[in-house]
């Protein structure tokens, strides 16, 4: 059934599958040849290939005045990549008799373009057109342990080598088979475009070789990967492989799938987050409503299943439910701010220097939502002895284990299909919809297609926790002696672990201790002050675990970087230096200086700007990549006070110049798209988008309340520059556009208005720019006046 729905199943069910097992070939004599690997063509009527990658992880060790911070030497991606090594031999590429190759990617496509970049990597080493490589998403595979987490911008970093090795072993097996078929030696054959040609011009296609390339017994194979100078596909912009489906409406998301009897299902939720239902007082009345088939109480609310989602909405609005209040009932922003202030630890002592000046700053970042366009949704078909789930999941193996636990089943009884999702932004690291759908299906004894209403996704869904960031800088005679940054935050939930149940349980130890350890680790492995600022210290304290939080795109970095780049501008001002020149003179890393120089030049840093308009410049370094952003902002009254129906105008970022160096680039077009998206995220974080907690409710219930960047906010002029790189390793791309943009917009705003903002977004404390939707019933009714609004 799943296959008919276009839901990815096993990749290797026909033709030949090459299982590549690779290990670095490290004979003493050969020195370090990082392109030679050992692979295995595993025996059988189909070819199966796997990879044992236990490669050393590179480290930076430049001599620098500041002691290197952990993230410089070993960042989050090193951790994530090393965690994947022991199991990377369990991924395989199949070559089929129709001449195509397929690969079930143990990662989640949420719009970041990894199915496209993965197809490109396979096409490159396999010598097959990209269009003949089919990349699907693997089901939950608990045996992959840490190798099925999509997060930390780690997909390309961790899969770059194993996937290429698998493809190279496949090519090698095909060449061996072709040598026999064509009666010529392998070295005389040329593989190109899915065809292998002999010197005399005779040729044979991959499809024709698919069967004969299979090996009856497991074979150890040495393969040599292409040198980057030989790349013809990697590094050349490629359009998304799913773009045509997206623009014709054929691309399927979870709620588009048709699973027999899985009728629309929604949940009536408590007026305060995480409140629980006592009882539904009018169940009989609800069951009589048009279209309604089932009503069931679950721990998160009252679920209703009906012929259409519209009838679910009607039913929810008619429900009379008694609730137990949620754990933050009655609390408001100011209460949480007070709690964070109380949890702030004293800053450590600074070097004793009577000539030095102290610069202090204190910033507050409000709650933000990572709600995607495609709300939390899942299809669940739970029977007495088994369950099948379809959902967009970035940690499907953890989801499988947790769902099994909730249903009283073993993990092997629960099949979890991973479906492409309409965005994630961190939201889909968790599986709130899938777990809830499974419980509802079990309670109703029927298949359900659960969709969260937007109002629930916004108010009860996960978000970025509120955070304070305090900075103290000691400087004297044009030198920075010490730089301290201390963040205090509502807890960031990492209980998904590294995508496997073992680390997820570790993160779920009592009293938040496990999660705090996880959070501290992620913070330490991602944060870094890339300047020569003497004694540098960055710390994180997390408190308060009653909110629904999680990683939001780029986790700690946007807030942290925004705070420290604003202070960098203050330092430059105190020392009478230009912000660009100041950064250039204190930066430690040549790659960062190069992107900074690039945006300063391409974006005309320092050009005269009219009153109330200004430039801002900022840098970021993370996930093995570096970036710089130069923005221009318009804070003129006529712009700020634009009248926007159901939205906010406010200052407009008019121009963005962004330079990114992620090392080796697989798909420059995809990278450019990721930067453009990150730019819009950074603008939203600085200017418009936040959640207001008031009397125990998050007020924002939809896109007319939660002000993510819209066309009237987006910069009319955006230039993304992908830096040339001679690196042979890729860096992370999915989050790299956010932090530098947020920081640059904040710096530009400070310059245009003459006031450094100390809380974000800058419009949070203004009078609310929307009418708050009711909390009972919890979701709004759909309007009926659509025919009056046509254009």
């Amino acid at each position, binding site marked *: 059934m799943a296959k008919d729905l276009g839901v990815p199943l096993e990749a290797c069910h026909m033709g030949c599958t090459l299982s590549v097992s690779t290990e670095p070939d490290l004979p003493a004599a050969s020195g370090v040849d990082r392109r030679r690997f050992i692979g295995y063509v595993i025996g059988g009527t189909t070819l199966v290939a796997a990879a044992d990658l236990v490669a050393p992880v590179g480290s930076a060790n430049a001599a620098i005045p500041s002691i290197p911070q952990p993230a410089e030497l070993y960042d989050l991606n090193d951790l994530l990549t090393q965690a994947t090594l022991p199991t990377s031999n369990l991924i395989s590429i199949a070559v089929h008799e129709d001449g195509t190759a397929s690969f079930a990617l143990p990662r989640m496509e*949420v*719009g*970041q*373009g990894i199915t496209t970049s993965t197809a490109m990597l396979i096409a490159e080493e396999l010598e097959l057109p990209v269009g003949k490589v089919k990349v699907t998403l693997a089901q939950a595979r608990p045996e992959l342990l840490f190798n099925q987490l999509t997060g930390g911008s780690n997909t390309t970093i961790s899969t770059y080598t194993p996937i290429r090795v698998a493809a190279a072993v496949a090519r090698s097996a095909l060449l061996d088979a072709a040598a026999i078929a064509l009666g010529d030696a392998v070295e005389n054959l040329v593989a190109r475009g899915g065809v292998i040609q002999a010197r005399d011009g005779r040729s044979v296609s991959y499809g024709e070789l698919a069967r004969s390339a299979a090996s009856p017994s497991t074979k150890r194979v040495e393969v040599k990967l292409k040198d980057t100078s030989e790349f013809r596909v990697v590094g050349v912009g490629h359009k*998304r492989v*799913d*773009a045509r*489906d*997206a*623009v*014709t*409406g*054929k*691309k*399927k*998301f979870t*709620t588009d799938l*048709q699973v027999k009897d899985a009728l*629309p299902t929604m949940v009536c939720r408590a007026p305060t987050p995480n409140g629980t239902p006592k009882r539904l007082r009018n169940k009989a009345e609800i069951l009589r409503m048009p*279209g309604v088939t089932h009503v069931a109480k679950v721990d998160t609310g009252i679920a209703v299943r009906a*012929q*259409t*989602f*519209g*009838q679910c*909405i009607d039913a929810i609005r008619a429900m009379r439910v008694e609730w137990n209040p949620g754990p933050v009932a009655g609390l408001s922003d100011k209460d949480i701010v007070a709690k964070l202030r109380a949890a702030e630890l004293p800053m450590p002592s600074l070097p004793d220097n009577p000539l030095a000046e102290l610069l202090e700053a204190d910033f507050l970042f409000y709650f933000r939502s990572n*709600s*995607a*366009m*495609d709300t939390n949704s899942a299809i669940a078909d739970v029977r007495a002895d088994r369950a099948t789930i379809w959902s967009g999941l970035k940690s499907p193996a953890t989801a499988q284990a947790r769902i099994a636990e909730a249903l009283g089943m073993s993990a092997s009884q629960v099949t979890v299909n991973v479906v492409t999702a*309409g*965005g994630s932004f961190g939201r889909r690291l968790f599986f709130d919809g899938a777990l809830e759908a499974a419980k509802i299906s079990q309670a109703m004894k029927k298949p359900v297609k659960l969709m969260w*209403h*937007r109002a629930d996704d916004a108010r009860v869904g996960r978000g970025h926790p509120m955070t304070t960031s305090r900075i103290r800088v000691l400087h004297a005679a044009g030198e920075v002696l010490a730089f301290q940054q201390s963040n205090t935050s509502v807890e960031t939930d990492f209980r998904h672990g590294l995508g496997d149940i073992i680390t997820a349980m570790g993160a779920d130890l009592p009293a938040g201790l496990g999660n705090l350890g996880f959070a501290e680790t992620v913070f330490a492995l991602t944060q870094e002050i890339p300047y020569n600022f003497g004694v540098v210290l960055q710390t994180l304290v997390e408190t308060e675990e009653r909110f629904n939080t999680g990683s939001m795109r780029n986790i700690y970095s946007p807030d942290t970087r925004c705070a420290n780049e604003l202070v960098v501008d203050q330092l430059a001002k105190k020392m009478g230096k230009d912000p660009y020149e100041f950064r250039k003179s204190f930066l430690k890393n040549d790659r960062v200086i190069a992107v900074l120089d690039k945006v300063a030049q391409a974006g005309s840093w320092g050009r005269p700007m009219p009153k109330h308009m200004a430039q801002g410049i900022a840098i970021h370094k993370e996930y093995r990549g570096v970036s710089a952003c130069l923005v221009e902002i318009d804070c003129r009254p006529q712009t700020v006070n634009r009248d926007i129906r*159901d939205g906010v105008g406010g200052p407009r970022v008019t121009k963005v110049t962004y330079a990114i160096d992620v090392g080796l680039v697989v798909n420059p077009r995809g990278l450019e*798209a990721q930067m*453009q*998206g*990150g730019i*819009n995220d950074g603008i939203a974080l600085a200017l418009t988008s936040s959640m207001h907690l008031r009397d125990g409710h998050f007020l924002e219930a*939809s*896109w*007319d309340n939660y002000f*993510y960047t*819209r*066309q*009237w906010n*987006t910069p*009319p002029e*955006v230039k993304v520059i992908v830096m040339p790189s001679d690196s042979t390793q890729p860096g992370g791309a999915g989050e790299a556009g956010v932090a530098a943009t947020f920081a640059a917009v904040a710096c530009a705003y400070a310059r245009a208005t003459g006031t450094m903002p100390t809380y974000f977004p800058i419009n949070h404390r203004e009078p609310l720019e929307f009418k708050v939707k009711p909390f009972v019933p919890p*979701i*709004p009714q*759909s*309007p*009926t*006046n*659509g025919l009056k*609004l*046509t*254009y």
Partner: protein
Amino acid sequence: MPKQTFILNGKPTTVDVHDDVRVLWVLRDLLGVTGPKYGCGINVCKACTSHINGKAFNPCSVRVGDLAADDHVTTIEGLNDTVGKDLHPMQEAWLDRDVPQCGYCQPGQIMAAVALVRKVRREGRSIRDSDLDSIRNICRCGTYTRIREAIEQGARHM
């Protein structure tokens, strides 16, 4: 249950459902036409944008009972047929600019773009920056820059 009749992507279509069910659910849940997406249900995100008699509308905010038997509803699935080609010029432009990221909002974006170009043509002018600024369709991936480029490109071939 009342029979509801309208013309969907060129074909007369009848479905048994109460008058007050919004057209979005009739399309998605009863007819299996899933190009128009749910993003809010209150006509603010515009992910379900489709056309009625050639103009943009949002089926989340129209009762099926308010459709007349001769109303032409066009979803993204039927857009190409309106020009008798495999792809509408706006879809071609979307592909050329490689606009989509997750793709969820893009059917609505394209339907809105086509209607916007037609609207400014009716006003006897071409697309301006202020028209692009007025587009209300949200894209949480932030593909706005490429959407703007694609609309200008698509308009040239419409």
